[in-house]
């Protein structure tokens, strides 16, 4: 069984701020790390390596610095690392990112299973998995919370839906996105760090891909455009309410209604 896990390097903290004057992200001194949700995807793959002898590759797209997270993946037991890096890939939105990953995966090999984390902590969209599956032409399921069975041609999983747990069998090749907590991610091993220090990482640029039309990548291949970014409105000041109990109850009722706390939760 061959598995590819998609990973991403993200800012080390979500506490990013916007410069009020320039409207640009303040990123000074912000460390990078592996997207925490990807650890669960990788752990799932590594369990399959242990239990079924699967080969596990990681693939990421990003600037050269993202080598750090591929090295980290090696320290956890991943066999092979592929980095898609090219200035032509820059400024990619979900569509261009998914397309680039699909091109990289096609180049890297025939996989039975692609595993993605639930979402990233920076973009927060949880869409790349589904779009990637579409570009690869394979089925996908999201919200996998438990693996019940792995067979030659299929995998049986539980999906964590809002009101239900759904059990489904999906034929290979397929893509799954896993929930946080499906398995407890392992820590990087120092032994593996030493053992994999010289392991070669495969770098793929635009020229290495089957589709070399640069209009399909990066900013060129991105239908969405960010017009501007700005700080959210802050919860302003404190409000003190006084008056008769009847009035206070009526006011509280209105506030709860306006803020939609009186609708069913789902």
């Amino acid at each position, binding site marked *: 069984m061959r598995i590819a896990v998609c990973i991403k390097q993200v*800012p080390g903290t*979500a506490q*990013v701020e*916007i410069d009020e004057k*320039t409207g*640009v*992200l303040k*990123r000074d001194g912000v460390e990078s790390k592996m997207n925490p949700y990807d650890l669960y995807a990788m752990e799932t793959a590594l369990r399959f390596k242990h239990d079924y002898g699967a080969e596990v590759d990681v693939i990421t797209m990003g*600037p050269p610095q993202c080598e750090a997270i591929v090295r980290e993946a090696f320290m956890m037991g991943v066999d092979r690392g592929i980095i898609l890096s090219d*200035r*032509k890939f*820059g400024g990619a939105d*979900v569509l261009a990112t998914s397309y680039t990953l699909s091109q990289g995966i096609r180049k890297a090999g025939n996989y039975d299973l692609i595993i993605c984390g639930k979402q990233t902590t920076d*973009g*927060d969209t*949880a*869409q790349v*998995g*589904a*779009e990637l599956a579409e570009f690869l032409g394979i*089925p*996908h*399921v*999201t919200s996998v919370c438990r693996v019940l069975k792995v067979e030659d041609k299929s995998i049986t999983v539980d999906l964590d839906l*809002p*009101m*239900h*747990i*759904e*059990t489904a*069998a999906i034929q290979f090749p*397929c893509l799954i996105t896993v929930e946080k907590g499906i398995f407890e991610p392992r820590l990087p091993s120092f032994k593996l760090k030493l053992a994999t220090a010289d392991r070669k990482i495969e770098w793929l640029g635009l020229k290495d891909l089957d589709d070399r039309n640069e*209009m399909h990548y990066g*900013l060129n291949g991105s*239908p*969405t*455009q*960010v*017009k*501007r*970014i700005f*700080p*959210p409105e802050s*919860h302003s000041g*404190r409000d*003190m*309410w*006084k008056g008769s*109990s009847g009035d*206070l*109850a*009526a006011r*509280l009722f209105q*506030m709860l209604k306006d803020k*939609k*706390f*009186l*609708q*069913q*939760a789902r």
Partner: protein
Amino acid sequence: MPQIVIHQAKAQDPQSLAALCPFDAIEFADGILSINSGCRMCRLCIKNGPQGVFEYVEDARPGVDKSLWRGVAVFADQTGGQIHPVTWELLGKATELAVKIKQPVYCLLAGYNVAAAAPEILEYGPDEVYVYDLPELEHFRIEPYTAVFEDFINKVKPSVVLVGGTSIGRSLAPRAAARFRTGLTADCTMLDIRPDTDLDQIRPAYGGNIMAHINTPNHRPQFATVRYKIFSAPEKVAVPKGRIVRCEIAPERLASAINVLEVKPKRREVGIEEAEVIVVAGRGLKKREDLDMIRELAAALDGRVASTRSLIEAGWTEPRQQIGLSGRTVKPKLIITCGVSGAIQFVAGMNNSELIVAINEDEKAPIFKTAHIGIVGDMYQIIPALINKIREYKAAGHGSPAGCLQTCGGKA
């Protein structure tokens, strides 16, 4: 497409120019400055760099013919024939947008044994409901649902497609958007439309620390997902004007490699850490039986009951209900504290809640320093009056569409 061009001849101090970029996207190597893939087009280098070194170049590319794509479409999110209420909210927003550009509102209803829901959808104002009622659509499986979505879009050619940010929507919308090689903006919190039908989409990023304004200027349709309870459901129209369109699709397009084996209802035992709404009883409670009032309020808000340490020590509540440094830390969407003074050890366990409402008789209670809304008054009068109002509201059929009671009831 736009790009940043570097005029090398004008670059004086390449090292300092490379430092201009907060994303480390400017590289200096072999005597040449270049922009790498880290570039986010923030244009800070143009703004803060020496004049003339960095230039923003936009080349016009023929866009899509926007006049061929008309109307605002909503995907009706359903499980087992029960329409998710986010659908009503999206239909309300779709109507608002469609009025501005004088175009129709469409709705896509896909599933098995779901046709009965179409007349109810019409009550929320769409001009046409397209119904795909097929056995292959009994469970949400990605291939047949995407095939139906594709068929619908090709039939209708909508300019905008709105999908609920539910577990179904968050799986289906990106798949369908990718099939049309078009843009999708997830979890929008504000939507507006321009005369040229470009959709203005605003969404939070970086865990809500930043808002982004996004357009899809050269592609159609424009996909956006919106979470439940972001927009408001409109009032039902007295006389629906829309029509129902029954659709067929070739069965071979509905094949799937996914086999749904079992669907089990989830036993939702929500602890206070996971609760979205919490009502807290504090020392202001006079006797144990008065907890009923707190429980009733929590039930009316679909929330959980928690307490301060003093009530646990009195044996009135369970230790797992305790909020504070020696108990649990919570971060619900709404927390209402009733007769809680607000000792530091308590506040530390709840001060990151999104909306904090405190009811206390003592205007000087420290809890009012933490609360967003401080209500100075007698909870023994305010809470029963509030519960009555909520009951009347719900009895009038608001807030809990048919079928909800048996699914949501009893877990509070």
